[in-house]
């Protein structure tokens, strides 16, 4: 359990450290180091879990099982690679005068704050704390969204703040209802402890839990970005600094979904009606389809990919909603590959925006001619996210389809329709940006594209051959969530 504590402690230290010393020259590199160490800690934790199964801390405050440990590693990994990307990126932003030193300090401090909140969401065993951490994540990032202080960014941050705040308040009401249901059967102290609740899920009042779940779904669903609660998401992603978009898309959404799934496990334990699953499927499919259409009308490159995040979160929600082992496995895999791919894309998108000095799709042209690595990175990333093999996204989408085909065959055409439309929407926008002659005045920037390559390589690897340990890991998580192993 020690690595888990350290994992939480280190970002906390980071907040203070960068709050005090964030104006130093090599602050970007420090940030990389912090995240590197957390990555190491997370791996240590993962090894522990791998060897000895689920860990529950003394006093039941924290729980690390195969489901969340893999998300922890993912979080740490994406946090690490994004920090690699963010160092030169933010330096460049400062160079061109978009940011002051103080804001940079705020940025790095809150980066750690956000990471802390993420780890807390993932490790905590207490549904209340989970809520608190979730809200803290919003609070940590809201100032980052408005970091540039343009009218648009302030607007975006305000919307992000209000919508997520109101949304998550509903999740709190759901949590209260859950608590209420729990104190009927157990003592007051442990009534919000997930592991206790999970063991006693059968005893909980199903009707209360169903209502509670509605609130949770609306609440955390706002953070996942489920249609029609998604409106903040494209704004926040597009107006903040790009590394933030990468972690928001790659991590925050995942963690919100994680919270929903944790709750769903409780509801499923209490009731046989599968109502939670149906709700998630409905929302998921709606988000998936609507976001696919949204992709066609984007004018801003980061908005484009934030809609793609909505689309994929919809797909995951849908898959978790189906709830069969197969679907769960697929959703877990999809979570991984989506995080990796999407954060890689945002890295390239950030550079693309820096190259052309604008985020407007119409003005970004000829990236391959200007800076081939960025252009190809964006193009291949887009291919990967659009679900073309041999990238991992295809594998997971294939599995989702397969699971859907087994359980709800009549829904498959909708899924496929969504995939097709989304693919068209992505490429009609991305293709003109990467191809063609470069416009006047577009210049290559200093960029570190290792994160992109590493992410895409992993995604490729997952698509071609999933390593055994990862498969085992996913399988264990699947067993945890859905009760049995896929095949």
């Amino acid at each position: 359990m020690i690595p888990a504590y350290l994992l939480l402690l280190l970002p906390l230290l980071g907040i203070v450290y960068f709050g005090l010393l964030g104006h130093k020259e090599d602050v970007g590199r420090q940030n990389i180091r912090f995240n590197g160490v957390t990555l190491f800690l997370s791996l240590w934790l993962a090894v522990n879990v791998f060897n000895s199964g689920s860990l529950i801390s003394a006093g039941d405050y924290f729980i690390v099982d195969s489901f969340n440990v893999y998300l922890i590693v993912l979080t740490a990994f994406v946090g690490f690679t994004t920090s690699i990307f963010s160092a030169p990126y933010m330096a460049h932003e400062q160079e061109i005068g978009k940011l002051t030193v103080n804001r940079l300090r705020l940025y790095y401090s809150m980066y750690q704050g956000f990471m802390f909140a993420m780890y807390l969401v993932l490790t905590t065993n207490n549904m209340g704390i989970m809520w608190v951490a979730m809200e803290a994540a919003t609070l940590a990032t809201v100032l980052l969204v408005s970091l540039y202080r343009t009218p648009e960014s302030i607007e975006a941050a305000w919307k992000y703040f209000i919508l997520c705040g109101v949304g998550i308040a509903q999740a709190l009401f759901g949590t209260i209802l859950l608590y209420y249901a729990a104190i009927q059967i157990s003592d007051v102290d442990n009534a919000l402890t997930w592991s206790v609740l999970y063991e006693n899920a059968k005893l909980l009042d199903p009707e209360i839990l169903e209502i509670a779940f509605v609130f949770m779904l609306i609440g955390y669903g706002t953070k996942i970005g489920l249609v029609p609660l998604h409106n903040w998401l494209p704004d926040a992603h597009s107006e903040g600094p790009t590394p933030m978009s990468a972690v928001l898309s790659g991590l925050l959404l995942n963690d919100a979904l994680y919270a929903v799934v944790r709750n769903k496990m409780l509801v499923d334990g209490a009731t046989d009606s599968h109502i939670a699953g149906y709700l998630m499927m409905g929302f998921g499919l709606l988000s998936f389809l609507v976001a696919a259409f949204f992709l066609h009308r984007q004018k801003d490159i980061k908005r484009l990919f934030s809609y793609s995040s909505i689309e994929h979160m919809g797909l995951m929600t849908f898959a978790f909603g189906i709830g069969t082992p197969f679907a769960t496995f697929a959703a877990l895999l999809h979570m991984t590959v989506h995080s990796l791919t999407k954060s890689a894309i945002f890295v390239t998108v950030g550079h693309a925006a820096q190259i052309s000095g604008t985020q407007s799709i119409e003005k970004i042209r000829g990236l391959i001619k200007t800076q081939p690595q960025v252009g190809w990175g964006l193009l291949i990333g887009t291919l990967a996210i659009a679900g073309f093999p041999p990238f991992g996204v295809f594998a997971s989408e294939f599995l989702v389809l397969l699971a859907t085909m087994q359980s709800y065959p009549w829904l498959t055409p909708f899924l496929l329709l969504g995939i097709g439309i989304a693919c068209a929407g992505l490429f009609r926008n991305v293709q003109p940006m990467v191809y063609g002659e470069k416009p006047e005045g577009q210049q290559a920037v200093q960029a570190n594209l290792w994160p992109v390559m590493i992410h895409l390589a992993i995604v490729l690897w997952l698509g071609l051959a999933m390593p055994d340990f990862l498969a085992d890991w996913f399988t264990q998580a699947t067993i945890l969530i859905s009760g049995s192993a896929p095949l």
Partner: protein
Amino acid sequence: MEIENLDHYSQVILSLAALVTLTSFIMLAQGRLLRLVFVFALQGFMLVSATAIAAYSFDNPHLYISAAITLALKVLFIPWMLRRHILKLNMHRDVEALSNKTAIMMGGASLVVFSYYVLHPIMQNSSMILLNALSLSLAVILLGMLLMISHHQAIAHVVGFMSIENGLFFAATVSTNGMPMVVELGVAFDVLVAAVLFGIFFLHISSSIDSLDVDKMNRLNEVDQ
């Protein structure tokens, strides 16, 4: 169970619940910001009283802490902060013209009914006070949202947001005798930070669009012009 059969504690709680809901309605109809903030503080005070009474009647000391935090935050700090901003931004003379006030009030009333309708089936085997208190706090939450939907001053939105939190606290206090202490503290911390952030945002917004009218913040839309 009739109300005359209940103990005094329950009667008081129910009355406070009704008053909290009433304050929500008043806020909903309120067009002047200073009064809105005042009513909000009043609502906070009801909440504090309810918490304190619950602490007293169940002999649950940690609820006193909760009450104290609420008092500090919701009755004193946040209203004070909001009031300061209103005065600083010279908005205390603004009257927000609510379109179709009657319809909003009727809508609010039906929300109360709706809350009962939703929670009634699941509360059949619990006490009436719980049913009433939970339903009313749900109503307060929904009314808070309605407040935000109907008002277009950012400050009103903050008030609405905070009144949603009030509803949540009320529900937590009444139905479950308060959440675990850690959670309460965490939530309170979040509220505090949120309040501070709101203050920062008021400045940013007013400097960027020269007012706090959220309707003017619609640069980020995707509708064909």
